[in-house]
């Protein structure tokens, strides 16, 4: 497969106006990816599929990622006048990078036997700008997986032929794979809990019976968690 930089340059030449960035992956696998802007994603996808040197004809995987708002601290050097004397001071600034939802596509070429090429798209935020173009018209295998991303993350794919929930029932209102999902509190009976389940069982107990007198003798047969 040709290097990612040259793929990006060829995309930029072929699709005028597209904004494509390389997202580096610092892990040992070094699987860098291409970040595409949603407006031109469909054209970029068509190019990747049809270009004779690339021919990405198979989309193996569609994934959703939820990025919460993140507080970023950075150190900036500023020049200040302190007591009439100009000095360079280091200052810490904090700003909040707003969260977004991200969809990741893994592309392979069956004909040329190369891949994967990792393609990313990001939504504007996590609440009301969650629309992204569907790539199902380009790769048919995206259909169910985009439905799954819609079901679990709440990304709305425009141009999807049949966008319904797939794992949860129609009428379910939450998006369970989002990081701020609150699950129903049904940890009533946990005889042998450990780890997070022990935490949840204890929280359930404090929610349901908050007036258990402290230090009261536990009834026989009860377990301590």
């Amino acid at each position: 497969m040709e290097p990612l930089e040259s793929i990006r340059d060829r995309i930029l030449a072929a699709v005028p106006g597209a904004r494509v960035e390389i997202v580096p992956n610092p892990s040992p696998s070094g699987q860098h990816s291409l970040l595409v802007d949603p407006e031109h994603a469909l054209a970029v996808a068509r190019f990747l599929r049809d270009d004779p040197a690339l021919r990405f004809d198979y989309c193996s995987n569609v994934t959703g990622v939820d990025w919460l708002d993140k507080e970023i601290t950075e150190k900036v050097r500023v020049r200040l006048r302190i007591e009439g004397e100009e000095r360079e001071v280091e200052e810490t600034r904090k700003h909040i990078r707003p969260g977004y939802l991200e969809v990741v596509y893994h592309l392979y070429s069956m004909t040329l036997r190369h891949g994967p090429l990792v393609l990313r798209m990001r939504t504007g935020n996590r609440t009301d700008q969650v629309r992204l173009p569907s790539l199902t018209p380009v790769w048919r295998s995206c259909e169910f997986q985009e439905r799954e991303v819609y079901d679990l993350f709440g990304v709305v794919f425009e141009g999807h032929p049949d966008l319904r929930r797939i794992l949860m029932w129609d009428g379910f209102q939450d998006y369970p794979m989002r990081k701020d999902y609150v699950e129903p509190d049904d940890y009533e009976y946990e005889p042998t809990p450990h780890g997070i389940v022990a935490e949840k069982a204890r929280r359930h107990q404090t929610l349901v019976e908050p007036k258990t007198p402290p230090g009261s003798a536990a009834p026989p047969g009860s377990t301590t968690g």
Partner: protein
Amino acid sequence: MDPGLRSELQRHGIFVTTLEQLYNWGRSNSLWPLGFGLACCAIEMIAASMARYDLARFGAEVFRPSPRQADLMIVAGTVTKKMAPQVVRLYNQMAEPKYVIAMGACAISGGPFKQGYNVLKGIDRYIPVDVHIPGCPPRPEALIHALMTLQQRIAEESLTGPDRPRHLRPDQPGEYPVPEFGPHDLVPPKNPEIWHPPAIRRPA
């Protein structure tokens, strides 16, 4: 009747029985399960019904494709919240008397998927379970053991009196409410009439 006298009579070729014993003997040796599986545990259930483990020795090999003909529901596998109403409805559609075996960690408590967003934490929240089998998955021997336990319990049931089983008492319901799909969870999340988990107190 005195069991000593009965075995003495049997030695002379005279068999004495009661209607109750005959009834329970017939039922416990022809437990027909409802043929459905929900996840990996179902594979073990299938293995148990095949030649190597041979559930047919216990009269329980006739997996019925319809709840009207089944006596036993083997809940083998993960009960997702999307599937739970169907399982409860199938149980309701079975004819009396009916029994339930919850097979595997998933069916009795949610198992490895307990913290999943879509897994019911035990089918006994909605229907009465007679035998629980722990394990992930339980081996076919465990299923056979559960079946024998159930057979034993059926053999001990009495036809009359205050402690007669559920299906002979007019005050016990023949069907249980089917949960509905709610906006955040199943509604209701459990049936408090039949699910009474023992209270566990822990230091907070």
